[in-house]
Protein backbone atom coordinates (compact mmCIF):
# COMPACT_ATOMS: atom_id res chain seq x y z
CA UNK A 1 0.00 0.00 0.00
CA UNK A 2 1.56 3.25 -1.17
CA UNK A 3 0.46 6.17 0.92
CA UNK A 4 0.50 9.82 0.01
CA UNK A 5 3.00 12.11 1.69
CA UNK A 6 1.68 14.18 4.58
CA UNK A 7 0.64 17.53 3.25
CA UNK A 8 -1.64 20.49 3.91
CA UNK A 9 -4.28 21.98 1.63
CA UNK A 10 -2.23 25.14 1.18
CA UNK A 11 0.71 23.08 -0.12
CA UNK A 12 -1.65 21.54 -2.69
CA UNK A 13 -2.70 25.03 -3.76
CA UNK A 14 0.99 25.80 -4.27
CA UNK A 15 1.41 22.76 -6.51
CA UNK A 16 -1.69 23.77 -8.52
CA UNK A 17 -0.26 27.27 -8.94
CA UNK A 18 2.53 25.67 -10.96
CA UNK A 19 0.06 24.23 -13.48
CA UNK A 20 -0.27 26.56 -16.49
CA UNK A 21 -3.30 27.21 -18.61
CA UNK A 22 -2.45 25.38 -21.85
CA UNK A 23 -3.73 28.22 -24.03
CA UNK A 24 -2.38 31.15 -22.01
CA UNK A 25 0.83 29.75 -20.53
CA UNK A 26 1.61 32.86 -18.45
CA UNK A 27 -1.44 32.17 -16.30
CA UNK A 28 -1.78 29.34 -13.83
CA UNK A 29 -5.06 27.53 -13.40
CA UNK A 30 -5.31 29.20 -9.99
CA UNK A 31 -4.90 32.68 -11.56
CA UNK A 32 -7.70 31.74 -13.98
CA UNK A 33 -10.10 30.84 -11.19
CA UNK A 34 -10.54 27.35 -12.59
CA UNK A 35 -9.71 25.64 -9.28
CA UNK A 36 -12.76 26.02 -7.07
CA UNK A 37 -11.97 23.84 -4.09
CA UNK A 38 -9.18 21.74 -2.67
CA UNK A 39 -9.47 19.37 0.25
CA UNK A 40 -7.99 16.21 1.66
CA UNK A 41 -9.84 12.96 2.11
CA UNK A 42 -7.77 10.69 4.35
CA UNK A 43 -4.71 12.56 3.18
CA UNK A 44 -5.68 12.12 -0.51
CA UNK A 45 -6.17 15.30 -2.52
CA UNK A 46 -9.59 16.09 -4.00
CA UNK A 47 -9.60 18.92 -6.54
CA UNK A 48 -12.78 20.57 -7.82
CA UNK A 49 -12.38 22.47 -11.08
CA UNK A 50 -14.83 24.32 -13.29
CA UNK A 51 -14.61 24.90 -17.05
CA UNK A 52 -14.22 28.46 -18.33
CA UNK A 53 -16.34 27.95 -21.44
CA UNK A 54 -18.67 25.01 -22.04
CA UNK A 55 -16.71 23.83 -25.03
CA UNK A 56 -13.25 24.71 -23.76
CA UNK A 57 -11.02 22.01 -25.25
CA UNK A 58 -8.32 22.75 -22.66
CA UNK A 59 -10.23 21.15 -19.77
CA UNK A 60 -9.17 17.57 -20.51
CA UNK A 61 -5.58 18.74 -20.81
CA UNK A 62 -5.81 20.71 -17.56
CA UNK A 63 -7.17 17.67 -15.73
CA UNK A 64 -4.27 15.62 -17.00
CA UNK A 65 -1.71 18.27 -16.02
CA UNK A 66 -3.11 18.49 -12.48
CA UNK A 67 -2.82 14.74 -12.18
CA UNK A 68 0.77 14.80 -13.48
CA UNK A 69 1.80 17.60 -11.10
CA UNK A 70 0.38 15.76 -8.10
CA UNK A 71 1.91 12.46 -9.20
CA UNK A 72 5.29 14.17 -9.36
CA UNK A 73 4.83 15.20 -5.75
CA UNK A 74 4.24 11.61 -4.75
CA UNK A 75 0.45 11.42 -4.68
CA UNK A 76 -1.16 8.31 -6.07
CA UNK A 77 -4.78 8.61 -4.95
CA UNK A 78 -5.99 11.73 -6.74
CA UNK A 79 -9.58 12.78 -7.35
CA UNK A 80 -10.35 15.56 -9.83
CA UNK A 81 -13.95 16.52 -10.38
CA UNK A 82 -15.45 19.10 -12.70
CA UNK A 83 -18.47 21.06 -11.48
CA UNK A 84 -20.53 23.43 -13.62
CA UNK A 85 -22.37 25.38 -10.94
CA UNK A 86 -21.86 28.14 -10.10
CA UNK A 87 -20.84 29.04 -13.64
CA UNK A 88 -17.30 30.37 -14.03
CA UNK A 89 -16.92 34.11 -14.39
CA UNK A 90 -13.90 36.25 -15.27
CA UNK A 91 -14.44 37.99 -11.91
CA UNK A 92 -12.72 34.95 -10.39
CA UNK A 93 -9.49 35.71 -12.19
CA UNK A 94 -6.91 36.94 -9.67
CA UNK A 95 -5.52 40.50 -9.83
CA UNK A 96 -2.11 38.92 -10.25
CA UNK A 97 -3.54 36.97 -13.21
CA UNK A 98 -4.96 40.14 -14.81
CA UNK A 99 -1.60 41.88 -14.47
CA UNK A 100 0.21 38.93 -16.08
CA UNK A 101 -2.32 38.87 -18.92
CA UNK A 102 -1.73 42.50 -19.72
CA UNK A 103 2.06 42.05 -19.71
CA UNK A 104 1.58 39.11 -22.05
CA UNK A 105 -0.28 41.37 -24.51
CA UNK A 106 -3.88 40.34 -23.79
CA UNK A 107 -6.24 42.99 -22.42
CA UNK A 108 -7.60 41.64 -19.11
CA UNK A 109 -11.36 41.25 -18.59
CA UNK A 110 -13.40 44.11 -17.15
CA UNK A 111 -15.56 43.37 -14.11
CA UNK A 112 -18.68 41.59 -15.35
CA UNK A 113 -20.86 44.20 -13.65
CA UNK A 114 -19.68 46.95 -16.03
CA UNK A 115 -22.47 47.69 -18.53
CA UNK A 116 -21.47 46.91 -22.12
CA UNK A 117 -21.87 50.55 -23.19
CA UNK A 118 -19.46 51.76 -20.49
CA UNK A 119 -16.75 49.24 -21.15
CA UNK A 120 -13.34 50.62 -21.93
CA UNK A 121 -10.90 48.16 -23.42
CA UNK A 122 -7.36 49.37 -22.95
CA UNK A 123 -4.62 48.57 -25.47
CA UNK A 124 -2.13 46.26 -23.70
CA UNK A 125 0.74 47.71 -25.76
CA UNK A 126 0.43 51.51 -25.43
CA UNK A 127 -2.39 51.70 -22.83
CA UNK A 128 -4.56 53.86 -25.06
CA UNK A 129 -8.30 53.64 -24.43
CA UNK A 130 -8.99 54.48 -28.06
CA UNK A 131 -9.65 50.96 -29.30
CA UNK A 132 -12.27 49.29 -31.45
CA UNK A 133 -13.84 45.86 -31.66
CA UNK A 134 -12.86 43.88 -34.76
CA UNK A 135 -14.60 40.62 -33.91
CA UNK A 136 -16.46 39.24 -30.92
CA UNK A 137 -14.82 35.90 -31.56
CA UNK A 138 -11.06 35.66 -31.28
CA UNK A 139 -8.37 32.99 -31.35
CA UNK A 140 -10.07 31.05 -28.56
CA UNK A 141 -13.61 31.02 -27.15
CA UNK A 142 -12.62 33.31 -24.28
CA UNK A 143 -11.21 36.14 -26.39
CA UNK A 144 -12.43 38.90 -28.67
CA UNK A 145 -10.30 40.69 -31.25
CA UNK A 146 -9.68 44.42 -30.87
CA UNK A 147 -7.49 46.99 -32.58
CA UNK A 148 -5.81 50.01 -31.03
CA UNK A 149 -6.66 53.18 -32.93
CA UNK A 150 -3.50 54.91 -31.71
CA UNK A 151 -0.67 52.39 -32.08
CA UNK A 152 -2.70 50.37 -34.63
CA UNK A 153 -1.81 47.04 -33.00
CA UNK A 154 -4.52 44.39 -33.12
CA UNK A 155 -4.84 42.59 -29.78
CA UNK A 156 -6.88 39.98 -27.94
CA UNK A 157 -9.26 41.03 -25.19
CA UNK A 158 -10.17 38.45 -22.59
CA UNK A 159 -13.96 38.87 -22.70
CA UNK A 160 -15.68 39.45 -19.42
CA UNK A 161 -17.97 36.52 -18.91
Amino acid sequence: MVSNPTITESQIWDILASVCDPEIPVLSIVDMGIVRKVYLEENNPVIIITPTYTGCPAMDMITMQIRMALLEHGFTQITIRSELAPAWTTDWMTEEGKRKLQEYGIAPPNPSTTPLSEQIIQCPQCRSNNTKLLSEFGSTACKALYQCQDCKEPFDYFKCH
Partner: protein
Amino acid sequence: MNDPLNKYILHLADNALILAQRNGEWCGHGPILEQDIAITNISLDLLGQARNFYQYAASLQGNDATEDSLAYLRIENEYRNGLLVEQPNIDWAQTILRQYFFSTYQYLLYEKLQAADDAQLAAIAAKALKEVSYHLRWSREWVIRLGDGTAESHRRMIQAVDALWRYTGELFIPADYENQVGVDVSLIKDAWTEQVNVVMAEAGISLPEKTYMQTGGKQGIHTEHLGYILAELQYVQRAYPNSSW
Protein backbone atom coordinates in the same frame (compact mmCIF):
# COMPACT_ATOMS: atom_id res chain seq x y z
CA MET B 1 -33.48 4.54 -21.93
CA ASN B 2 -37.06 5.48 -22.69
CA ASP B 3 -37.98 7.55 -19.68
CA PRO B 4 -39.00 11.14 -20.41
CA LEU B 5 -36.00 12.73 -18.68
CA ASN B 6 -33.57 10.68 -20.74
CA LYS B 7 -35.41 11.52 -23.96
CA TYR B 8 -35.47 15.17 -23.01
CA ILE B 9 -31.74 15.36 -22.28
CA LEU B 10 -30.98 13.64 -25.58
CA HIS B 11 -33.28 16.08 -27.38
CA LEU B 12 -31.29 19.00 -25.94
CA ALA B 13 -27.98 17.29 -26.71
CA ASP B 14 -28.94 16.36 -30.27
CA ASN B 15 -30.03 19.92 -31.09
CA ALA B 16 -26.65 21.21 -29.95
CA LEU B 17 -24.60 18.47 -31.61
CA ILE B 18 -26.26 18.63 -35.02
CA LEU B 19 -26.04 22.43 -35.22
CA ALA B 20 -22.39 22.21 -34.09
CA GLN B 21 -21.73 19.74 -36.89
CA ARG B 22 -23.45 21.96 -39.47
CA ASN B 23 -21.58 25.09 -38.37
CA GLY B 24 -18.34 23.12 -38.30
CA GLU B 25 -18.71 22.49 -42.04
CA TRP B 26 -17.70 26.14 -42.47
CA CYS B 27 -14.27 25.54 -40.94
CA GLY B 28 -11.78 26.84 -43.49
CA HIS B 29 -14.58 28.01 -45.79
CA GLY B 30 -15.96 31.10 -44.03
CA PRO B 31 -16.49 34.26 -46.12
CA ILE B 32 -13.64 36.02 -44.31
CA LEU B 33 -11.25 34.80 -41.66
CA GLU B 34 -12.86 36.50 -38.67
CA GLN B 35 -16.29 35.08 -39.55
CA ASP B 36 -14.81 31.66 -40.18
CA ILE B 37 -13.48 31.88 -36.63
CA ALA B 38 -16.80 33.17 -35.29
CA ILE B 39 -18.95 30.39 -36.74
CA THR B 40 -16.53 27.67 -35.64
CA ASN B 41 -16.34 29.20 -32.15
CA ILE B 42 -20.11 28.90 -31.99
CA SER B 43 -19.78 25.33 -33.21
CA LEU B 44 -17.37 24.59 -30.37
CA ASP B 45 -19.67 26.12 -27.76
CA LEU B 46 -22.54 23.97 -29.03
CA LEU B 47 -20.36 20.88 -29.03
CA GLY B 48 -19.49 21.62 -25.40
CA GLN B 49 -23.18 21.87 -24.54
CA ALA B 50 -23.84 18.58 -26.33
CA ARG B 51 -21.05 16.88 -24.37
CA ASN B 52 -22.44 18.10 -21.06
CA PHE B 53 -25.90 16.79 -21.90
CA TYR B 54 -24.64 13.45 -23.28
CA GLN B 55 -22.43 12.94 -20.23
CA TYR B 56 -25.40 13.58 -17.99
CA ALA B 57 -27.66 11.24 -19.98
CA ALA B 58 -24.97 8.55 -19.93
CA SER B 59 -24.58 8.84 -16.16
CA LEU B 60 -28.33 8.34 -15.71
CA GLN B 61 -28.48 5.41 -18.13
CA GLY B 62 -25.61 3.53 -16.53
CA ASN B 63 -24.59 0.24 -18.17
CA ASP B 64 -21.99 0.96 -20.80
CA ALA B 65 -23.43 4.26 -22.02
CA THR B 66 -20.91 7.07 -22.57
CA GLU B 67 -21.09 10.45 -24.25
CA ASP B 68 -19.45 8.81 -27.26
CA SER B 69 -21.84 5.89 -27.52
CA LEU B 70 -24.76 8.32 -27.43
CA ALA B 71 -23.32 10.59 -30.10
CA TYR B 72 -21.82 7.97 -32.39
CA LEU B 73 -23.89 4.82 -32.05
CA ARG B 74 -27.50 5.87 -32.28
CA ILE B 75 -29.30 5.79 -35.59
CA GLU B 76 -31.29 8.49 -37.31
CA ASN B 77 -34.70 7.81 -35.80
CA GLU B 78 -33.21 7.80 -32.31
CA TYR B 79 -32.07 11.40 -32.75
CA ARG B 80 -34.56 13.93 -31.35
CA ASN B 81 -33.22 17.23 -32.65
CA GLY B 82 -35.56 19.67 -34.30
CA LEU B 83 -35.63 19.77 -38.11
CA LEU B 84 -34.29 23.34 -38.17
CA VAL B 85 -30.77 22.47 -37.03
CA GLU B 86 -30.23 19.73 -39.61
CA GLN B 87 -31.03 21.96 -42.60
CA PRO B 88 -28.05 22.44 -44.92
CA ASN B 89 -25.81 25.52 -44.81
CA ILE B 90 -26.47 26.47 -48.48
CA ASP B 91 -24.94 29.94 -48.12
CA TRP B 92 -23.99 32.45 -45.42
CA ALA B 93 -27.53 33.88 -45.28
CA GLN B 94 -29.16 30.53 -44.55
CA THR B 95 -26.46 29.61 -42.04
CA ILE B 96 -26.91 32.92 -40.23
CA LEU B 97 -30.69 32.81 -40.22
CA ARG B 98 -30.73 29.22 -38.91
CA GLN B 99 -28.39 30.32 -36.12
CA TYR B 100 -30.47 33.37 -35.32
CA PHE B 101 -33.79 31.47 -35.16
CA PHE B 102 -32.17 28.79 -33.05
CA SER B 103 -30.19 31.08 -30.72
CA THR B 104 -33.28 33.16 -29.99
CA TYR B 105 -35.11 29.95 -29.10
CA GLN B 106 -32.20 28.55 -27.11
CA TYR B 107 -31.74 31.76 -25.13
CA LEU B 108 -35.40 31.78 -24.04
CA LEU B 109 -35.26 28.05 -23.32
CA TYR B 110 -32.10 28.12 -21.18
CA GLU B 111 -33.28 31.19 -19.34
CA LYS B 112 -36.12 29.04 -18.00
CA LEU B 113 -34.15 25.81 -17.79
CA GLN B 114 -31.59 27.34 -15.41
CA ALA B 115 -34.37 27.39 -12.82
CA ALA B 116 -35.27 23.72 -13.40
CA ASP B 117 -35.71 21.36 -10.45
CA ASP B 118 -33.09 19.11 -11.99
CA ALA B 119 -29.84 20.61 -10.67
CA GLN B 120 -27.59 19.31 -13.45
CA LEU B 121 -29.86 20.54 -16.25
CA ALA B 122 -30.06 23.90 -14.47
CA ALA B 123 -26.25 24.08 -14.18
CA ILE B 124 -25.65 23.23 -17.85
CA ALA B 125 -28.23 25.82 -18.93
CA ALA B 126 -26.88 28.59 -16.69
CA LYS B 127 -23.37 27.99 -17.96
CA ALA B 128 -24.39 27.83 -21.63
CA LEU B 129 -26.66 30.87 -21.42
CA LYS B 130 -23.67 33.21 -21.21
CA GLU B 131 -22.32 31.81 -24.48
CA VAL B 132 -25.70 31.71 -26.21
CA SER B 133 -26.01 35.45 -25.57
CA TYR B 134 -22.93 35.96 -27.80
CA HIS B 135 -24.38 33.70 -30.50
CA LEU B 136 -27.62 35.61 -30.39
CA ARG B 137 -26.02 39.05 -30.57
CA TRP B 138 -23.72 38.02 -33.41
CA SER B 139 -26.35 36.28 -35.55
CA ARG B 140 -28.89 39.08 -34.98
CA GLU B 141 -26.43 41.68 -36.25
CA TRP B 142 -25.72 39.56 -39.31
CA VAL B 143 -29.41 39.03 -40.12
CA ILE B 144 -29.87 42.80 -40.12
CA ARG B 145 -26.68 43.41 -42.09
CA LEU B 146 -27.64 40.95 -44.82
CA GLY B 147 -31.34 41.78 -44.96
CA ASP B 148 -30.65 45.50 -45.02
CA GLY B 149 -27.52 45.14 -47.16
CA THR B 150 -27.09 44.82 -50.91
CA ALA B 151 -29.75 43.63 -53.35
CA GLU B 152 -27.95 40.30 -53.48
CA SER B 153 -27.70 39.79 -49.72
CA HIS B 154 -31.35 40.85 -49.36
CA ARG B 155 -32.42 38.34 -51.98
CA ARG B 156 -30.49 35.57 -50.27
CA MET B 157 -32.01 36.40 -46.90
CA ILE B 158 -35.49 36.10 -48.43
CA GLN B 159 -34.49 32.72 -49.85
CA ALA B 160 -33.27 31.66 -46.42
CA VAL B 161 -36.59 32.63 -44.83
CA ASP B 162 -38.43 30.61 -47.48
CA ALA B 163 -36.24 27.60 -46.80
CA LEU B 164 -36.26 27.69 -42.99
CA TRP B 165 -39.47 29.25 -41.73
CA ARG B 166 -41.45 26.01 -41.99
CA TYR B 167 -39.10 24.34 -39.49
CA THR B 168 -39.54 26.91 -36.73
CA GLY B 169 -43.04 25.81 -35.72
CA GLU B 170 -42.06 22.53 -34.10
CA LEU B 171 -39.70 24.26 -31.65
CA PHE B 172 -42.76 25.38 -29.69
CA ILE B 173 -44.92 22.25 -29.91
CA PRO B 174 -44.06 20.11 -26.89
CA ALA B 175 -43.11 16.51 -27.65
CA ASP B 176 -44.48 13.84 -25.30
CA TYR B 177 -41.34 13.97 -23.13
CA GLU B 178 -41.46 17.77 -22.96
CA ASN B 179 -44.91 17.50 -21.46
CA GLN B 180 -43.40 15.69 -18.51
CA VAL B 181 -40.03 17.30 -17.87
CA GLY B 182 -38.11 20.49 -18.61
CA VAL B 183 -39.41 23.76 -19.96
CA ASP B 184 -42.88 24.18 -21.45
CA VAL B 185 -41.80 25.42 -24.88
CA SER B 186 -45.28 26.61 -25.80
CA LEU B 187 -44.75 29.38 -23.22
CA ILE B 188 -41.74 30.88 -25.00
CA LYS B 189 -43.38 31.06 -28.41
CA ASP B 190 -44.79 34.57 -28.00
CA ALA B 191 -41.51 36.04 -26.81
CA TRP B 192 -39.67 34.36 -29.70
CA THR B 193 -42.17 35.62 -32.27
CA GLU B 194 -42.05 39.14 -30.89
CA GLN B 195 -38.24 39.33 -30.91
CA VAL B 196 -37.94 37.78 -34.36
CA ASN B 197 -40.53 40.17 -35.77
CA VAL B 198 -38.59 43.19 -34.51
CA VAL B 199 -35.30 42.01 -35.98
CA MET B 200 -36.79 40.96 -39.32
CA ALA B 201 -38.53 44.32 -39.60
CA GLU B 202 -35.20 46.03 -39.02
CA ALA B 203 -33.66 43.77 -41.65
CA GLY B 204 -36.44 44.74 -44.07
CA ILE B 205 -37.54 41.13 -44.53
CA SER B 206 -41.16 40.11 -44.24
CA LEU B 207 -42.12 36.79 -42.72
CA PRO B 208 -44.73 34.45 -44.20
CA GLU B 209 -48.14 35.07 -42.66
CA LYS B 210 -49.42 31.54 -42.89
CA THR B 211 -47.28 28.57 -43.72
CA TYR B 212 -47.46 24.85 -43.38
CA MET B 213 -45.16 23.91 -40.49
CA GLN B 214 -43.23 20.67 -40.86
CA THR B 215 -42.83 18.66 -37.65
CA GLY B 216 -41.44 15.29 -36.60
CA GLY B 217 -37.77 15.85 -35.75
CA LYS B 218 -38.38 15.80 -32.03
CA GLN B 219 -40.05 12.39 -32.47
CA GLY B 220 -37.22 11.02 -34.62
CA ILE B 221 -38.81 11.56 -38.03
CA HIS B 222 -36.25 13.64 -39.88
CA THR B 223 -35.71 15.34 -43.21
CA GLU B 224 -33.43 13.55 -45.67
CA HIS B 225 -30.47 15.62 -44.48
CA LEU B 226 -29.87 14.03 -41.08
CA GLY B 227 -28.79 10.67 -42.49
CA TYR B 228 -25.96 12.32 -44.40
CA ILE B 229 -24.84 14.29 -41.36
CA LEU B 230 -24.71 11.15 -39.24
CA ALA B 231 -22.91 9.22 -41.97
CA GLU B 232 -20.10 11.74 -41.81
CA LEU B 233 -20.23 12.24 -38.04
CA GLN B 234 -20.26 8.54 -37.20
CA TYR B 235 -18.12 7.08 -39.97
CA VAL B 236 -14.90 6.54 -38.05
CA GLN B 237 -16.59 5.00 -35.02
CA ARG B 238 -18.67 2.69 -37.22
CA ALA B 239 -15.71 1.64 -39.37
CA TYR B 240 -13.29 1.21 -36.46
CA PRO B 241 -15.42 0.42 -33.38
CA ASN B 242 -14.00 1.66 -30.06
CA SER B 243 -11.08 3.39 -31.70
CA SER B 244 -9.82 6.40 -29.79
CA TRP B 245 -7.25 9.16 -30.22
